[in-house]
């Protein structure tokens, strides 16, 4: 075990994969963003220069190139930068990467990880703040991973890169600097498993990516008021670990969901729907949903803050349903 940042954990997984698999290639630049962790990628890009391709600003064809290359036998890691830019390749993700295996009757495999940074970032305004998780999940054929801690990031990225499926990997820039214990050896965390990040008995808070950090903060605050909150980290949106999530909801009898994106047809909507289908009888209170206020993201800092779900709004939602 070593304490590492999330960015270092990602680099760990990429390094092991580059060493292990000569057919593993990376397309894109600035895979660790511009927030102070980017230097961790430098050695990688130097030692494996021939495995990195710097594409033009042409997301559609670049994505197709990655997809076609994956079909031909390579394992690909394709970095889009801000998730918003991935919309320029939306048709390629939804109708090419997601459908090829099924449409070919299983003949074609598409081992590719689409990497992108989602969410509110402070000043991202209306065109650089997208959280596309729910949109992706509404289409079959794409796995969706959104870990929160360094340990999960390394293990899940290794699993994704050893797999044979297209995976949309949604990171949040603010996670890159988070540090935590990371096993030094190589390991995999199977895709499709949620993780209970904190045990509790009064309410279940289901979140993924950055909102998990908010949920844990909220749980601390609630604990002071004697409210015991369980925090479930979805981690893998597709496939979704219904058992773990429903079990927690049935256990506590109360659910609050948290989304960094807007509420309409969101991940939170899906979790709430699951509860209403599979834990209805166990629910002691209405479900509470916390999400980004439904508006194109305004630039002004106070406005952005006002639409950002955070610990306070989670605490308020929990208290509302406990009232």
């Amino acid at each position, binding site marked *: 075990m070593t304490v590492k940042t999330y960015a270092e954990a990602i680099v760990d997984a990429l390094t092991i994969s580059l060493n292990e698999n000569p057919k593993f290639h990376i397309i894109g630049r600035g895979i660790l963003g511009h927030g102070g962790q980017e230097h961790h990628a430098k050695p990688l890009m130097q030692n494996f220069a021939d495995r990195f391709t710097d594409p033009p600003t042409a997301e559609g064809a670049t*994505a197709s190139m990655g997809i076609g290359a994956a*079909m031909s036998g390579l394992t690909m890691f394709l970095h889009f930068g801000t998730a918003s830019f991935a919309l320029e390749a939306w048709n390629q993700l939804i109708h090419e990467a997601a459908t090829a295996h099924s449409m070919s009757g299983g003949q074609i495999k598409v081992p590719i990880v689409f990497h992108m940074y989602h969410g509110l970032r402070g000043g991202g305004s209306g065109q650089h703040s997208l959280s596309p998780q729910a949109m992706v999940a509404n289409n079959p054929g794409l796995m969706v991973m959104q870990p929160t801690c360094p340990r999960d990031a390394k293990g899940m990225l290794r699993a994704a890169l050893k797999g044979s499926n297209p995976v949309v990997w949604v990171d949040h820039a603010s996670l890159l600097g988070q540090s935590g214990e990371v096993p030094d050896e190589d390991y995999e965390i199977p895709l499709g498993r949620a993780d209970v990040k904190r045990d509790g008995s009064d309410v279940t808070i289901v979140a993924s990516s950055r909102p998990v950090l908010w949920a844990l903060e909220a749980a601390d605050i609630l604990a002071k008021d004697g409210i015991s909150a369980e925090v479930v980290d979805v981690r893998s949106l597709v496939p979704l670990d219904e058992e773990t999530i429903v079990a927690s909801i049935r256990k506590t009898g109360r659910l609050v969901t948290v989304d960094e994106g807007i509420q309409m047809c969101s991940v939170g909507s899906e979790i709430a729907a699951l509860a209403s289908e599979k834990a209805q009888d166990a629910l002691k209170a209405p479900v509470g949903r916390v999400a980004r206020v439904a508006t194109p993201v305004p630039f002004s800092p106070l406005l952005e803050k006002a639409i950002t779900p955070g610990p306070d709004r989670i605490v308020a939602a929990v208290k509302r349903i406990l009232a």
Partner: protein
Amino acid sequence: MLAKPSERLALLERMLTMRRFEEEVLRIAKDHPYIGRQHLHIGHEATGAAVAAALTPEDLFHTTHRNHGYLIARGADPGRAMAEIMGRKDGLNGGRGGPWHLCDRMAGFQSTSAMVGGSVGLAIGAGFGLMKQGSKAIGVAHFGDGTLDEGICFESFNLASILSLPVLFLCENNAKEGQRPSSMLAAKALRDLPHALQIETNVVDGRDADAMHDAAKGAVAHIRSGKGPFFLQAQLERWPGSHQIKPEFPTGVTDLSLAWEEDRIEGKHADWTRDHDGIRLYVKTLLAENAATRDQILTLDKKVKQRMDDARAFAEKSPYPDPATAADHVFA
């Protein structure tokens, strides 16, 4: 030009197989309305067969909604191809793809996209992948003239050019002035676009199998030698049935004897049969150059037709896949 008469006869057989296959597909579409709209490759056979003959089995091919001809030309089993078009269990894709998405990995095909521009983007990926794996094989993108309207086609040309990818861009230009869908490109000529991106180009009469084969061999040699992508454009006349919604035989079932009994060519689309049917033209050429006899050709055609009858029988016998398997293969 192919030197040996036997090679030219083999090329004709490829073309005939493609044509008779599509004619059977028309009958299938009539008998099984559920399979819906077909985009047949009729009229493109000289191009398709000639290019296929210039490729090796390792070359990875991405085709479009108009894919049947290429699958057959590269050796996919006609029975399994028909079964796929009919959505049967023994279809190439197990019935999951259907007529717009025929795929046979064993015949060198990757995912067949019916999104205009899809094949172009995926094929540069095939080229990228083959290059990185140190293979001498190339990626091939088959697409139509209308595909150049899509930005992804431009982006893919650009990527292939800057990365010098081993990719053949095979454009079948069947545009008909003012008839949609057809390219609406402001360029004087389609080739002006790849040319502006410093991609070698060549434009050939797609009805002329010999010329097309020479051009394809030249383009493939250029690419294999590491000189980067190549844009090969086949000039074709749109077959009257190309975008039909209901299945019909606008030009009738192909009658090879019209190659030597031209005065019998008639009907609304006589001009197409006379001037634009690459198969009739090639038969004429082979006869004129004594590369084959009428008997040889008619025997060949008989053999091909028999194959198609057997293929159809196979496909008809094939059951529909079990509904319980509807959600198989979502993930590998």
